[in-house]
């Protein structure tokens, strides 16, 4: 196990190097001239030259790449070219708690919604309850986040006169005022969670159907255990292993979803920051953030693999 972990962690180095090179190529080489894109509408030659010089675009590409990578490794993610010129790290300090809370709440909610529904649907297959949960899951899978978010905000305001508090005030940490904080995060997290919950529900259902056929479940039944014990203690434990894996793999979808949901619900998190940077063509900021997102994604996938090996003792990696 320890060797496996060490090997996997070492394998990260070439992948992350490749990812950083690819990010660099996407933003510096494909556009032709990143300065022109950054400068945008109404650009003058002097400004263009200044942007070029400031960001080192007049130097050879390998020097630029080396500088950027070295900066990122030291925690220097560059600065925004917008008026404020805030360093990226300052913005991240402010925004990470928001995105973090959103993602954690989303995962908790999708597990709460998905796992029990999947179990119920699996232990009563082909009943109206089963059909209902399965139909609902396909429905939730099909409704895009942004539309669901807009519906909640629009009809919340129309029918109940309620608007999420972040449309009038800024982020309120949970410790300051739990009630306002929950109002700010409940619906964004729910919107993100329903799709993942549907995936989890479908997976839990098929995993439970598989597990319930095992011999040890028959043994549990014949010992005279109550259904509750058999299902929730004996069967679910094993059925949850693939569920945990897939939940972990949703991090990529969550990162993308946070970009969308944060802009719908006006949450000033990292996702909204990326989008704003993209819309004002702040390519140097986007480049660093893309690399960070990719790093988070790769690390979470590694964590999932390791958790899998740890949870299921039958799996032994050579």
């Amino acid at each position: 196990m320890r060797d496996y972990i060490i090997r996997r962690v070492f394998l990260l180095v070439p992948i992350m190097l490749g990812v950083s090179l690819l990010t660099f190529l996407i933003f510096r080489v494909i556009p032709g001239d990143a300065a022109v894109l950054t400068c945008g509408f109404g650009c003058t030659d002097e400004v263009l030259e200044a942007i070029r010089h400031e960001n080192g675009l007049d130097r050879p590409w390998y020097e630029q790449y080396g500088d950027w990578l070295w900066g990122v490794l030291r925690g220097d993610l560059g600065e925004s070219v917008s008026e404020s010129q805030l360093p990226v790290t300052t913005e991240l300090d402010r925004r990470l708690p928001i995105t973090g809370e959103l993602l954690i709440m989303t995962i908790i909610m999708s597990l709460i919604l998905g796992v029990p529904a999947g179990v119920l649907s699996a232990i009563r297959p082909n009943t109206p309850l089963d059909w209902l949960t399965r139909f609902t899951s396909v429905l939730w899978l099909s409704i895009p986040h942004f539309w669901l978010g807009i519906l909640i905000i629009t009809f919340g305001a129309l029918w109940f006169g309620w608007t999420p508090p972040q449309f009038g005030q800024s982020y309120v940490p949970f410790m300051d005022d739990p009630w306002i904080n929950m109002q700010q995060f409940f619906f964004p997290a729910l919107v993100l969670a329903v799709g993942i919950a549907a995936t989890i529900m479908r997976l839990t259902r098929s995993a439970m159907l598989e597990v319930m056929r095992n011999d040890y479940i028959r043994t549990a039944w014949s010992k005279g255990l109550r259904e509750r014990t058999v299902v929730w203690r004996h069967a679910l434990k094993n059925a949850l292993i693939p569920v945990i894996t897939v939940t972990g793999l949703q991090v990529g979808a969550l990162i993308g979803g946070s970009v969308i949901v944060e802009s719908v619900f006006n949450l000033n998190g990292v996702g909204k920051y990326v989008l704003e940077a993209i819309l004002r063509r702040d390519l140097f900021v986007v480049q660093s953030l893309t690399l960070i997102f990719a790093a988070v994604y790769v690390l979470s996938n590694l964590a999932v693999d390791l958790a899998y090996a740890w949870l299921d003792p039958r799996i032994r990696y050579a």
Partner: protein
Amino acid sequence: MAREAAVPLELEEIRPPSMPVLRRVLLLSRQHPLGVFGLVVVLGLFFCGIFADVVAPYDPQAIDQDAILEAPSPSHPFGTDRLGRDVLSRTIFGARISLMIGVVSVGFGIVIGTFLGVVSGYSGKLVDTIIQRFVDMILAFPPVVLLLAIITVIGDDDSAFRKFLSNNTPLPEGSFLGVPVFLDIFVISVGIGIAIAVGSARIIRGAVLSIKENVYIDAARTLGASDARIMAHHIFPNVAALVVILASITLPIAILAEAAISFLGVGVPAPTPSWGGDLTGRNYQAALEGHWWPAFFPGAALSLVVLGFNMLGDAFRDISDPRLRGGPGLGPSSGPGGSRGSRGL
């Protein structure tokens, strides 16, 4: 993968050959009513997309100063937006844009993905390693982030890629095949296509790895067939069914992806109707002020289409997966890319 791909064969195995086609279809559709619903929706999408000019009652971009933000009524069934444009017509034309982007990006992505997958799986060794490490790198980016990055960079008016396309290829800058701003749409499709290509290359490679172990591949090689010939004539026909399935799974994903990036303001440019783009900006503002219809109907159409594709896919999987064939409606399995994919973006 290869087994699930062989849909038509398995269907014939379970039904006695004497049964007439029509009756077989009727029987299947009675067992899978939701699948029929999905099929109807998908056909409706194609119909609206192709015949948008005929179906739509108004010009989707025609501004009517006298009918601003009118609620749904007989003359404007879906109401009008802040410029007095008919929402129903915009929704119908949105189908054309979605369909165009879906078809172009899936076509582009699947062709490249199949090529990479077949070459990578068949060649093995160094070629395989290079292609697969490259795929690893692209898959290391969260999909939406990758898409936003690619499209921002290649879609900008000043980008080298776009300039190359408009100067050196016959692709028209303006209207083409009834789609305004064709070049923008093409660029977006390329971006989505890259994401599709990478994912499908990985899946097809897996299928090729098992196919190339077959004896007939050895036989062909013994007879002196070249690698190119073996790939084209012996490997490709065996993954063709899988390719078709991948295309049908990725089409709704591509449509969702287009809507998502247009919603974020990076996709289809403004006056052109787009299901994602019409949910944002001023329509969203109008919705907050109580005029819900301009932002409601395009999103409803989008959800309906994705729902239709998902239901069709589920029914297809139920029919084709031998483990689930027993009772009607046993379990949506986690098939190839199924649910995870369509939400992944």
